[in-house]
């Protein structure tokens, strides 16, 4: 009995703490425009060598963070991403909610796409969007294909239902079916 109460109390503390983590963030980000310094390989092909690895120290800070994801969702409309990519299904630009990636689906690749643009019509937002906000957008783009934790991804919005909310979208590869 005692242990049970203790367990319950522990749970009561643990759940909110976990909840806090999903919101944890740097409240004083570098205000300057500018960009993450790492170069991002634009291909996975390197003659004879290892697959080039994509990793950026900033990635972990933004992925699966509820605050950043919800900011990313707001910015996706604010910077007219939705004008070209609709609510993820695509239009003038490709669909972002499927599991097909031209330039890579890692958060680092998506960050590079937004920052530098891509040749067939993706504009470069380098001079318009501060770096941290580009990371937020990149994290949200991953949520569109079901690649963010359900606990952190945005839920129902107030607009016309374009598709199920991001925290209910299935992973694009499996579409919710077990393999």
């Amino acid at each position, binding site marked *: 009995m005692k242990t049970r109460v203790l367990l319950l109390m522990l749970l009561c503390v643990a759940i909110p703490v976990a909840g806090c983590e999903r919101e944890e963030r740097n409240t004083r980000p570098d205000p300057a425009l500018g960009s993450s310094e790492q170069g991002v390989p634009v291909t996975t092909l390197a003659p004879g060598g290892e697959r080039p690895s994509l990793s950026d120290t900033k990635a972990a800070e933004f992925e699966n963070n509820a605050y950043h994801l919800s900011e990313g969702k707001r910015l996706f409309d604010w910077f*007219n991403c939705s004008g070209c990519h609709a609510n993820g299904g695509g239009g003038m630009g490709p669909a972002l909610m499927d599991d097909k990636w031209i330039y890579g689906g890692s958060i680092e690749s998506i960050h590079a796409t937004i920052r530098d643009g891509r040749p067939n019509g993706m504009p470069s937002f380098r001079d318009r969007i501060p770096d941290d906000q580009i990371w937020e957008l990149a994290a949200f783009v991953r949520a569109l294909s079901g690649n963010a934790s359900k606990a952190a991804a945005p839920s129902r919005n107030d607009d016309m239902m374009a598709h199920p909310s991001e925290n209910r979208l299935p992973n694009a590869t499996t579409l919710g079916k077990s393999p």
Partner: protein
Amino acid sequence: MSRRSPAFEGEPVIGLRCKVLAAFTAGLLSFAVLGPALGQQSPGANIAPPPAAAPADDGQWTMPAKNYASTRYSELSEINESNVGRLQVAFTFSTGVAKGHEAAPLVVGATMYIVTPFPNILYALDLTKPGAPMKWKFEPKPEPAAQGVACCDVVNRGAVFSNGRIFFATLDGHAVAVDAETGEQVWNTKIGNINIGETITMAPLVVKDKVLVGNSGGELGVRGWIKALDVDDGHVVWTAYSTGPDNEVLIGAEFKPFYEMDQGRDLGVTSWPPDAWKIGGGNVWGWISYDPELDLIYHGTGNPGPWNPDLRPGDNKWTAGIFARDPDTGSAHWFYQWTPHDQHDYDGINEQILLDMDWQGQPRKVLVRPERNGYVYVLDRTTGEVLSAKPFGAVNSSKGVDLETGRLIENPEKKTGTGKVVRDICPTASGAKDWQPSAFSPRTGLLYIPHSNLCMDEQGVEVNYIAGTPYVGMNVRMKPGPGGHRGEFTAWDIANEKPAWKLKENFPVWSGALVTAGDVVFYGTMEGWFKAVSARTGELLWQFKTSSGIIGQPIAYRGPDGHEYIAVLSGVGGWAGAIVTGDLDPRDATAALGFANAMRDLKDATNAGGALYVFRLP
């Protein structure tokens, strides 16, 4: 110009109308049969294009609309109702491009010319040799980045031939002249800027010594214009904007609009919130017709931007309307606004067919326009007066046109705005009919209209203007219209202001139409069927399944062997087909500005890939 069939029996009313009629009482029926005696005109009575705008057919096809009157009517009759069933493939040709093929092939002498969607390759095929081998190809190499600012697939609606040269425009905003014989570039003028969202998709028109061409970009806050370029060296002679002060719209002393709503100084500025006209759309991306006798060109203007109407109170002149202009100077003679303060993206850029006809006993020079907002307009083309505006498809966004004031009567229940979801608006943003041009036969007096049957839900949202990115401010979700079929092909009886017959299609009919003196009408479906139907009854006479959905414009020509040929480009795409060419994800109902939602099953019905098909009798 005699009509082959007797007055009324030959004017069929099929399908639904037939059943409805059958349900009526005998009395009503006898009234219907007595129709002609009670003032019904036989459809073909005295309707014909002005000869100066539609000269006798020489068997060539030198501009997409066939002639300045834009009839898309061929006088060839070797292929006719009785033998079209035996039509077979003469040759095919892959364009190598997997985007939407909206262009009309051209035939000049013994050469066929086709221009592809981006990257806008111009091919010349030698019709004198078996299989029509390639003579040359010309690659203008437009900037790849232009693809990102083309609102609705990277289409091109065709080239035009004049005086030894082929003229066309590239997606990245260049107008190009190419020597028709050698394929060498004669001149190349950059007139559009992709970094503010400008592209060019329309087919130019050559009038006298000028090439007329306008810009696209109504979904990116691009200010619309039409330019006249010198045929010899490509320099810009005049530019007429669709918004802004009168001197930039080329409105001066000659401007005499028929209705009060279009009269006043600088309406292109005062009918907008401050400075909104600078990013207000009104793009000239559709069709131009020309009347050599009146010496006037006619062209429409596109939707105002952004789509969310709350962000631009006012009539938003001179968007969603039509101008008559002097081709030499660009000076405007009249203007009429189809859709003042447009709320639903009803671009006013469709084709206008120039005809001379008796209207209520009076001979009139008219212009017939099946318009995006769902009405077939008949205008007096000398003044811009509206003689008639009757719906040809499902319309609930408006309640008709007030013929006193000329104004469209909007339906307050379908008024869109910020934060509000309005359901079941018909027609959709893509219109009862979009760019896909209709054809007119003087033998039947009917206008053959390829079109859609779609409705939509809309929600206005806030939007920021960032140059070179979309400026729409509307969530849209389209769906099939009444009856569940998404396309229609309507033969419109112009004189009697009503349909003669209608065909239903599963998908929107996004191809152009062609009608011939053999009384055969040709059009294509998005599944890929190329169809020949009777011009009088609509009865299906022949069909052939091409490799991809058809959204191109069919043509008829006389080959070097003296025989009649029918040609069409197959290759799905365009706004309606963007779900296939852009591989969009229909789980998002707003994909492709809402069109993907209505086309969820198109990926199962067809694949992208451009090919020319040419047919002849065995």
